[in-house]
């Protein structure tokens, strides 16, 4: 018999949001509970809740305090969070092309040096990973992936860059990620994908959902250029594969 679930902590985020926290750490079990609560709230909406934001270890629940108060909503959220988490989630599996190194991944050589190996070895290890979208946050489509191999865990850069390119594939701490639009980052840049996880003029606008699985594969510069043009036109590029 499974051990009973521990209740989440309810943390007030001002008067119009509650953070439902399942763990203080990056923890796949906690993340599954976050996504399960998120799904439950989609299937059984609570009046007054306007929006939910899943993250690694907590679900942020935005609500309207003229419709429901903190205590009432908090109690409902705890009840829902204590429901058993479905064992087999039906995740979508994506294959995402990446051009590694060179101008597409300016930190690849340095990462290899720091970790005492070759650039090819870093790429092989990164491509071997079976990743899970733990959360999407910070900027549109910025997908944080869990499942990075221990060997590739590296503390973030001392000096974050103010501008890193759109499509950057990078590693930071115990995570790897897909960045969609150009912006600041303190992570190590391994490569670039032509895939747009966010594209305003495409259906769907956002490609990945929290809980999706992701595997990377290597493409060369020429293929990158071709796929990049197709992606800009609104093609998905990333392939959905049978689980």
């Amino acid at each position: 018999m499974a051990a009973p679930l521990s209740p989440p902590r309810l943390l007030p985020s001002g008067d119009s949001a509650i953070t439902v926290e399942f763990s203080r750490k990056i923890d796949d079990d906690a993340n599954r509970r976050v996504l399960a609560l998120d799904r439950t709230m989609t299937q059984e909406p609570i009046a007054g809740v306007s929006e939910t934001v899943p993250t690694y270890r907590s679900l942020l629940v935005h609500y309207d305090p003229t419709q429901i108060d903190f205590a009432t909503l908090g109690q409902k959220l705890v009840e829902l969070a204590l429901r058993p988490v479905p064992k087999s989630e039906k995740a979508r599996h994506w294959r995402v092309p990446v051009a590694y190194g060179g101008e597409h991944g300016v930190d690849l050589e340095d990462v290899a040096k720091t970790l005492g190996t070759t650039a090819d070895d870093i790429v092989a290890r990164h491509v071997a990973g079976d990743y899970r979208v733990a959360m999407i946050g910070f900027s549109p489509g910025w997908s944080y992936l869990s499942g990075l191999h221990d060997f590739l865990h590296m503390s973030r850069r001392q000096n974050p860059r103010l501008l890193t390119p759109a499509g950057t594939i990078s590693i930071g701490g115990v995570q790897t990620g897909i960045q969609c639009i150009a912006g600041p980052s303190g992570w190590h840049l391994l490569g670039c994908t032509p895939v747009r996880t966010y594209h305003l003029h495409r259906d769907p606008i956002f490609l990945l959902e929290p809980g999706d699985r992701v595997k990377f594969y290597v493409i060369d510069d020429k293929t990158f250029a071709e796929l990049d043009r197709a992606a800009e036109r609104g093609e998905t590029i990333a392939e959905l594969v049978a689980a």
Partner: protein
Amino acid sequence: MTRLAITSIGPASSVQDGGRFGAQRYGLTPSGAMDRLRLAAANCLAGNALFAPAIEIGPYGAAFKARGGAVRVAMAGASRSAEIAGRTVAWDTSVTIADGETLKLGIAQGGAFSYLAIEGGFLGEPMFGSFSVNARVGLGSPFPRPLQAGDELSVAAASARPERRIDLPAAAAGPIRVALGPQNDEFGDYAISLFLDSEWKISATSDRMGYRLEGPVIKHLHGHNIVSDGTVNGSIQIPGNGQPIVLMSDRGTSGGYPKIATVITADFGRFAQVPAGTAFRFKAVSMEEAQAEARKFAELLRALPDRLTSIESFDLNVEALQDANVAGVAVSAVDARTWHADVLMPD
């Protein structure tokens, strides 16, 4: 086609409305007006829906010219000098800019942001249900960037109804109220007291994404990294240097610094209006009080139309005053409010 041309405008000025909600789970921040009450007041004056798109004007001056017809606009938020062709226009009123005339606004006084709403709105294409500019992401309409001199908005022609003024309650004075959390347990009692008991100033490097505060160093109990979690408008993060950052309308949807407290909804717009360099304090309130204030704030917004009054015969009165001046009678006349008592029509 009637147009409103922006003939001059300062930085930090952009089209904003109530914001785009529903995609924070994909990393898309809501954006929207920094001071929702003042956006709503300007729209209310202009006869628009309260959270319709309007021009959010940063601390510097601006000028707007009507082309191809008269344009009725309405102003609220941080007050400024306002004039059309040498005639002073009162703040918190609507006014019609005649074809070819220019409304000139001075710098913001006692606040940071003002709102210029346009009767009937202006043309654009909503993105995720909103015109709000999010320059980092390239969203916003009609321009996905801050406004610049030379931009033109396609607008509706002014209607014939009388001008209006709105009486807003006096801006609350006193400390900015916060509810502690979500990560106040990352700080010791001393750090929380220091945060609540100290005087703070908003740094000049602040923007619509976040206001950086200057004051004493707030120390963490266990370091400044937490696993990234969700943010709200008014989240007060404490990064490694111990100087708080209050997340504003263009915030990242998640953040990895501990959040000591959150500005309450009712005070968010008032906080957004604190000018850089002005000293202020925080005060912690209970969740019950914060939510009671949020409900009062919602009621204030709902009842804004009750605060409108018509300024009848505006133009006639201008002529009357000009005649009086010509006749040598000393009239200093220049605030629409001066006439209000005489000409107010019962609603």
